[in-house]
């Protein structure tokens, strides 16, 4: 791709700010890889508006203060036209102000999250609680039972998600036996496991996160929860998290996400991007939904569509176009922004862990509404 039609205007700059180091570096690196892949693909097919894309990647290091400094580099030094990134909600909160308010730039947040982010110029391309619960919880009630326990890590995502989940559970005739919050790094769950077992809970709708989730599932398993027919459910579980426990300890765990790798068997487009990713980035960092890799892909493609439509690159025009952007193909299927809502409709899949792999057991009939803003 040697000559660009509008090369004179210089490249369009895309900023990625994500956790390249720190505890969730596996996710951040996957996101960065996806971005490299997508940008390369766009450049190979002639760039955007006849201009090449240039990628700027900065580390957020799971440390908000480092992140803000680095994001400022993207905005103020590199003068990027758009920033995509941030994985945790706290990271999004920390960097959105420097990007959107002080930095007057467009921000795309790719991760599944608790919703309620309605800042102008901030677009979310990961699943919301509605998308993850609306179809999933009725399935759980049917395939698990009515008695739910909501053990959770104590931060905003589980709190907000649980409010939504509880509503769905109760309106579908289920019952929440208890909802309980733990410090984020709690690793001993004996009291919780005991309550789950002695209350004869059917479904553990888990929002405990690593490092606690591994020991938690193990303790549940050892207490005979699975043996007695209990079902685990966890909406952030993807291919990355399967290895936290031995397969037998999470047999039958159900998850609901916008993409699972098994989809490559039925969906040629998924097979294509998965193969392209693995070819470019063999190794540890998986192309998976829970680490925001799919959201990153979707976000970049939606933005590409918006830029094409707008025909220019200034923030307001692109935002206006992004407001209703659509892509026909993406991980897990098509996606489109809900106009005025800055959130994204997408297909959702329910999968169950069997012997260390997922099997798709249910899928949404169409695109699921994020129901945000």
């Amino acid at each position: 791709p040697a000559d660009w039609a509008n090369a004179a205007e210089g490249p369009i700059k895309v900023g990625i700010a994500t956790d390249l180091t720190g505890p969730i570096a596996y996710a951040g690196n996957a996101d960065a890889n996806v971005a490299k892949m997508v940008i390369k693909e766009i450049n190979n097919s002639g760039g955007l508006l006849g201009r090449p894309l240039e990628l700027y990647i900065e580390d957020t290091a799971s440390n908000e203060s480092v992140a803000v400094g680095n994001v400022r580099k993207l905005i103020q030094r590199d003068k990027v036209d758009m920033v995509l990134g941030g994985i945790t909600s706290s990271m999004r909160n920390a960097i959105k102000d420097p990007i959107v308010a002080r930095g007057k730039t467009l921000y795309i947040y790719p991760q599944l999250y608790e919703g309620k982010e309605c800042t102008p110029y901030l677009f979310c391309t990961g699943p919301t609680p509605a998308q993850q619960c609306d179809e999933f919880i009725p399935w759980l009630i049917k395939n698990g039972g009515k008695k739910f326990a909501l053990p959770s890590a104590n931060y905003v995502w589980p709190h907000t998600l649980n409010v939504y989940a509880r509503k769905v559970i109760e309106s579908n005739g289920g019952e929440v036996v208890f909802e309980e919050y733990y410090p984020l790094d709690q690793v001993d769950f004996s009291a919780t496991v005991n309550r789950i077992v002695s209350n004869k809970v059917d479904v553990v709708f888990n929002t405990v996160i690593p490092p606690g989730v591994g020991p938690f599932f193990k303790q549940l398993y050892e207490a005979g929860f699975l043996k007695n027919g209990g079902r685990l459910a966890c909406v952030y579980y993807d291919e990355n998290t399967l290895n936290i426990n031995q397969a037998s300890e999470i047999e039958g765990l159900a998850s609901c996400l916008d993409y699972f790798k098994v989809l490559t068997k039925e969906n040629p487009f998924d097979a294509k991007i998965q193969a392209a990713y693995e070819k470019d980035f063999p190794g540890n960092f998986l192309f998976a939904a829970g680490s925001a890799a799919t959201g990153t892909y979707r976000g970049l493609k939606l933005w590409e569509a918006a830029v094409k439509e707008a025909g220019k690159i200034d923030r307001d025009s692109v935002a206006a176009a992004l407001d209703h952007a659509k892509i026909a193909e993406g991980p897990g299927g098509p996606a489109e922004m809900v106009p005025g809502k800055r959130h994204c409709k997408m297909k959702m899949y329910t999968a169950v862990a069997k012997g260390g792999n997922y099997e798709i057991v249910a899928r949404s009939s169409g695109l699921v509404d994020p129901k945000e803003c």
Partner: protein
Amino acid sequence: MPKAMGAVKQTIPAEIGGDMDAAVGSSGTAAKAAAGRKVLPIVEGVVLVAALLAPLVLQDYLTVFATRVIILALFALSFDLVWGYAGIMSFGQALFFGSAGYGVALLARDLDITNIFLVLPAGTLIGLTFALLLGGFLLLGRHPSSVIFVSLGTLTGSYAADRLARGWYYLGGQNGIPSIAPMSLGGYEFSEGPAFYYLVLGILVVVYLLCRFLVRSQFGLALAGLRENEQRIAFFGYKAQHLKAIIFAIGGAIAGLAGSLYAFHEGFVWPNMVGVVVSTQVVLYVLFGGSGTLIGAVIGAVIVEGVSFWLSDNYRDIWPIILGLLLLLVILFRPLGLISFVLGERERVGSFGVKIKETRNAP
């Protein structure tokens, strides 16, 4: 081996190691010592001039970065005062920094108070109050508290505060408080940039001079004695514990001032800001630069932040490892900090008879 042990000696009693070259490097000739004594003001001057000129030569985003670094240097100063001068190991200095940050963030969020003349004193006061409470608890009492107790006590305080902040919904939990409105003065809003930079630099210079005055006074000498042997000082008739509590509170107040500036400059506060991560960071600044010299704290903050900024740009995947290695090397080979490249031991510890000595030696 004794050689190496002598080199790390800092506040330990003389007997432990085999030799004492660190403490004894003094016996050089008077003339040499007197000449060496001029180094500190020179270093201070150079740093000040560099800081004044920085925004003129730096790109915008670097000025913003430099502002942040200066705020952190102010924070480092607070820790240096407490540890470097009074020998109180505050491994939880972020508690005062962060709680002030949270305090002013709440003022801005819930009460719409952003006036600089209200928020900065408020932040300082919060830092002071927390330091008085924690210091009172840890430092006062029948028995003099051991360095290790105080360090782990403050560490635990900061750790507990971190967990509290994470768990408390009102404070935003894990997410902290984002999008804090800018600090204001009448209609003017301090947004990131040169104005904010010079404001912060001005504050740093004033606080620095105040600290300098304090540690050079007889009070500073009492602190130095305290650092060496608290019990001995008490037997002279000094109210040792009160002196410690006072300096701890002053440190807390400065940390609070820094914390409130930081909150407004960065525009958000989050639990790490009161927690162990930031607490350790400030210790590293001071150790890196050289504890027990005020300028060392400033230099340390600038260098550690600058180097990590640079490393994270150039060695994106392994920069924490490199940073760790650098730290280790400095601690191993320059246990008195980078400042010890230019500053002799005697000048670092200081001597309160200096002026007189020079006149005495004059022909």
